[in-house]
């Protein structure tokens, strides 16, 4: 996983609530697909509409997405994150996220940032003053989003997720260090709940 420290770039406003992962990528493109090459299908059922915000040339390849409430809700498909990565997105800023999508982002080195809706609208307004030129900085180390005019807006992030992103850690390797604890839990549980184990014994 690529480490995430600080990111500066164009922020594309997509301020609609409840963007479901089906909108980001239809399932048909994920059947037998690899993680790469999905960007070409991003939002394909919406992007040709004249009002589609991301259709503007100024926002092509923007690494930051400014989103509405409940972004990434619906299907658990991790392909939604791979698709956003495929169009260059490394950070999504939204008032709230679908729970499964939120976790999937961290698994892929994409930072989901929760900010109040009015703060996101403020950033979007500054961005729209000079589309394609205005730059937003997301500083994970300091936990701030810096608007094009220089306002630093703090955000919260779990310490565990923060360090995993900054260091590009592999969670499986981390958990495997706890193999003894896991084995001990399982041994205790087999005593406490033998039915949970014996019923599926091959």
């Amino acid at each position, binding site marked *: 996983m690529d480490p995430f420290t600080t990111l500066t770039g164009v922020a594309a406003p997509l301020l609609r609530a409840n963007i479901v992962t089906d909108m980001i990528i239809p399932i048909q493109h994920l059947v037998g697909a690899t993680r790469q090459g999905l960007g070409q299908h991003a939002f394909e059922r919406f992007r040709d509409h004249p009002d589609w915000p991301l259709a503007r040339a100024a926002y092509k390849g923007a690494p930051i997405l400014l989103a509405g409430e409940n972004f990434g809700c619906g299907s658990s498909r991790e392909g939604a994150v791979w698709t956003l990565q495929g169009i260059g997105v490394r950070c999504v800023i939204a008032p709230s996220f*679908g729970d*499964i999508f939120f976790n999937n982002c961290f698994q892929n080195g994409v930072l989901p940032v929760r900010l109040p809706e009015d703060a996101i609208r403020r950033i979007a307004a500054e961005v729209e003053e000079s589309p394609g030129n205005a730059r937003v900085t997301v500083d994970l180390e300091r936990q701030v989003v810096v608007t094009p005019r220089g306002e630093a807006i703090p955000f919260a992030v779990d310490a565990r997720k923060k360090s995993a992103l900054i260091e590009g850690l592999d969670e499986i390797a981390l958990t495997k260090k706890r193999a003894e604890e896991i084995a001990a839990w399982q041994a205790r549980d087999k005593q406490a709940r033998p039915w949970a184990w014996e019923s599926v014994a*091959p």
Partner: protein
Amino acid sequence: MATLLDRLWDPHVVADLGEGWSLLHIDRVLLHDLSGARALTEVGEKGHAVARPDLVFATPDHAVSSAPGRTSETFAGGARPIAGLRQRAKETGVRLFDLGQPGHGIVHVMGPELGIVLPGVTLVCGDSHTCTNGGVGALAFGIGASELTHVLATQTLMQRKPRAMRLTYEGVLPKGVTAKDMILAAIGKLGTAGGTGYAVEYAGSAVRALGVEARLTLCNLSIEMGAKMGFVAPDETVFQWLAGRRFAPKGAHWDAALRDWQGLRSDVGARFDAEHAIDAATIAPQITWGTSPEQVLPVTATIPAPATPGDRAALDYMGLEPGRPIAGTKVDWVFIGSCTNSRISDLRDAAVLLRPGAKVAPGVTAWVVPGSEIVKREAEAEGLHRRFLDAGFEWREPGCALCVAANGEAVPPGARCVSTSNRNFVGRQGTGARTHLASPAMAAAAALTGAITDVRAF
């Protein structure tokens, strides 16, 4: 004072990771042919063994054709992922229920049906509708392919404990109103983000009165209001339903399990982070009008005037006019199936409407896709398939089929479909397809009349 969430979650904490994060033991894993095949491959590519293949169960459901006589090759796009799932299951010792075998089916149908999913177990699957399995009192939730790989490699998952919500339905459901209507009404009230960050416990006399399959339906749409997990406290109804199933505990283990399961409930006076209540007696059959499950109405209502640009776009996509009654809207397709509503009781609910001589309305294509091989065989033994076929429905092979349209099957562009599935998103059932979510009986009524119809007047 503990909630049911505490009683399901806390005993599974292998390690407290701080800030509300836990390393959670996962007791059961279900794999399907998309995320499951991928995770099973990736765990090997990363150099890890499958930690506990005895706790992992696989079945292909998403990318399989539902055509009568199908094989895994019938939908060419699914051939490779299914072959991969078979090969990796064999290499790792994961039990696979293949096409045509009892046990094959939609993951969230076969899991409870085989007794793989039990009260008090933790269960994950790379599928957001894993919440379905909370209907038997399991802590079940959907995850992405990377988290699934983590589970396969370690039998654990790093998760943050959600907040606890209780949604109480007191009273008696009116005739013609089902679990599907209960949960759609809740989503209409709380919205598609109403449950985000929560685990939802469904409670109250109307929930206790539901059979297990109806509880699975209720929990299935938890994710449609944003909740990754939803569950019902297990009771005698669940215990009787599970007894004797293939992987349910037997003998002394069954007795021990029953003792454990009887404690799986929230304490009287336990504090919830959010509480909501719905009067069951006031719920009418529900039907969605838009492109989000929260855009839902009683079938007696009129199509609403758009309140937002999103509503306007939804009405345009659906080809509906505000101010007209939703009932009477002509339909082209009907789909009875999916992990929401494809169990034997769902098929019986739909078949009740098929009086002798009843026929699918001219111009309507109506599909019944049983949720599993066992459901299919049970329905055929009862003669339900004959009644559907005689009425002009197609009787097809088990799988996700038109719920997600990942198998080459699709509702044509512009066609209007009453569907017993869980998502009415733009393009979900096929590019340009217009989906109205409803119960199996409402779907059968639409098939017979060729229009959205109040099943109570049928």
